[in-house]
């Protein structure tokens, strides 16, 4: 029973991280039809910032957390302004944005890799090591932190999108860019905003995941791949579905690894992805195709 719970919670946790990564690039996609391959890199920067500011104990934790949020925003800003925005202005096809963000992701990964010599980032369990006990169940603090943060972030994102002026503008910009700009919405600023939101979400996801995953300059790629898989699974373009898809994926992976066969997990996940791509490209929830 204990083991089952552990697998369950870890599945939800890792799935949430993937879901958040998916949420991060969904935000950008909904605003500008750009597919951000660098979503994982942003998370990686968050993890790196975590290592620099929080886990090293150089500055007090609240200040460190500011750094954790700030660095990904800078990285995202770089990606957006240098690579994504010029292409959007040119009205280039979606494929170009994929390639451009890939280039950006490689550069960021490369730079951080150079700085850290591709070694593992410093991480730590800042929430303490004593598990939280709820009756008969005990859950590690890190997992709890992740789950709480995910719920918080998801709610915050939903609130932002639907209950704030800026958020509604962002939605409008995504649904009909031409109309939005005619109503006076500054499209460039909206896209910047989408990238900022995306970077914050991604960065926090990376920061939280750092102690769980092997955090290094190359952690971005697997994150973005699994994030995409989760997004396609749940429903690409729909934030809640993306999050759900990530969590489902996380559960599947953990359970399969724990109870059946760790060696074949990846293979099956990717095979399943191919099949899902083919037969249910809009996700298993059957939502309408967003594009």
């Amino acid at each position, binding site marked *: 029973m204990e083991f089952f719970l552990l697998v369950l919670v870890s599945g939800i946790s890792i799935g949430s991280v993937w879901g958040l990564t998916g949420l991060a690039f969904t935000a950008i996609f909904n605003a500008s039809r750009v597919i951000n391959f660098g979503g994982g890199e942003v998370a990686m920067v968050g993890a790196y910032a975590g290592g620099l500011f929080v886990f090293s104990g150089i500055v007090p934790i609240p200040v460190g957390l500011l750094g954790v949020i700030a660095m990904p925003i800078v990285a995202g800003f770089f990606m957006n302004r240098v690579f994504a925005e010029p292409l959007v202005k040119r009205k280039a096809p979606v494929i170009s944005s994929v390639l451009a963000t890939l280039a950006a992701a490689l550069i960021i990964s490369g730079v951080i890799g150079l700085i850290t010599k591709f070694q593992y980032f410093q991480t730590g369990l800042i929430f303490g090591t004593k598990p939280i006990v709820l009756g008969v169940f005990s859950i590690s603090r890190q997992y709890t932190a992740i789950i709480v943060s995910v719920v918080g972030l998801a709610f915050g994102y939903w609130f932002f999108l639907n209950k704030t002026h800026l958020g509604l503008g962002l939605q409008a910009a995504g649904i009909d860019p031409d109309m939005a700009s005619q109503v006076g919405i500054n499209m460039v600023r909206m896209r910047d905003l989408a990238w900022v939101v995306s970077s914050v979400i991604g960065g926090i996801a990376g920061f939280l995941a750092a102690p769980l995953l092997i955090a290094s300059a190359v952690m971005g*790629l697997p994150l973005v791949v699994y994030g995409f898989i989760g997004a396609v699974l749940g429903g690409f373009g729909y934030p809640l579905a993306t999050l759900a898809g990530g969590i489902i994926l996380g559960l599947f992976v953990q359970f399969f690894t724990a109870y059946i066969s760790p060696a074949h997990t990846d293979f099956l996940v990717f095979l399943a992805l191919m099949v899902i791509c083919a037969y249910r490209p809009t996700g298993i929830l059957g939502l309408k195709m967003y594009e």
Partner: protein
Amino acid sequence: MNTKKFKIFGYSIVLLFLLILPAFAKGNVMFLAVLGLIGGIAALGVNIFFGYCGQVNFGAAGFMAIGGYCVAFFERDLHTPYLLGLVLGIVASGLVALLVSLFLLRLRHFVLGLGTTAFGLAIYSMFAKGFTAYTHGEDGVSLNALHLFGIQAGDKFFYYVALICTILCIWISHAVRNSRVGRGMVAIAENEVAATSMGVDIDHYLRIALVLNGLLDGLAGGLLVKYLNFCSPAHFSLPYSILIFIAVVVGGAGSALGAALGGIIMFTINEVLTPLALYHTLAYGVILGAILLFMPDGIAGGIRTLSHRWSGVSRR
């Protein structure tokens, strides 16, 4: 026409240079050249799917893996001679492409790119982690050195073989491109509705393109493993798939010569940077980014624009 004579002259010089290169190459150059040419072949494969049909393939290394592992397994377990193993590897790769096309070709563009990524990753994990008793996973499978008429085939041999294969693949690409099939593929890339209304059966052509992609990349993989005398998943991972794709973009998607050139350049850089492994990722990002921002049609496109400006063609 003057441009045509100039072109023929230029190509002949390059060909001559390539043919006599082994005579004065020192040290590592041959090794780089062979790997570069193999990269060129792989890029030519992806060029047919992406350059002509406009569909993204991030799983090309998966096709290389099939070609390579077929060669390795046939040699290890059935002791088949290399040539036969290579042919079988190519065929197997083509067959897998056909199989995969059955369900991936319901998609287009981004989702297809995702699907091909999944394919590449599936193949990789199958060889790296699944069925490890048979495949030896990450440890890889070693192959015997190739012997012809009692002599061990060395760098020079593989160089000429790779060169001939590259030229053959360029020839095939051109033949396809300058035919109704090629025109149909380009029509698909630009606008599917228009292509359909002109009578192009899109699914059929995309399938042909993917199979050709599989065949060429299977060849590349089969050559690679025998040259290195070693077959391991490390050569067929996602970064390699992406490298091949970047090679096509850098060289010029839609141009066979460009793709080949891009493949040679990127794979050579890849090897050259190995001691400086720290700079790999950054270098690729910078190269890809620079091409996308400044020369979106790749090197081939850049040369084409220059030559147009030089001879004032588009003015007419």
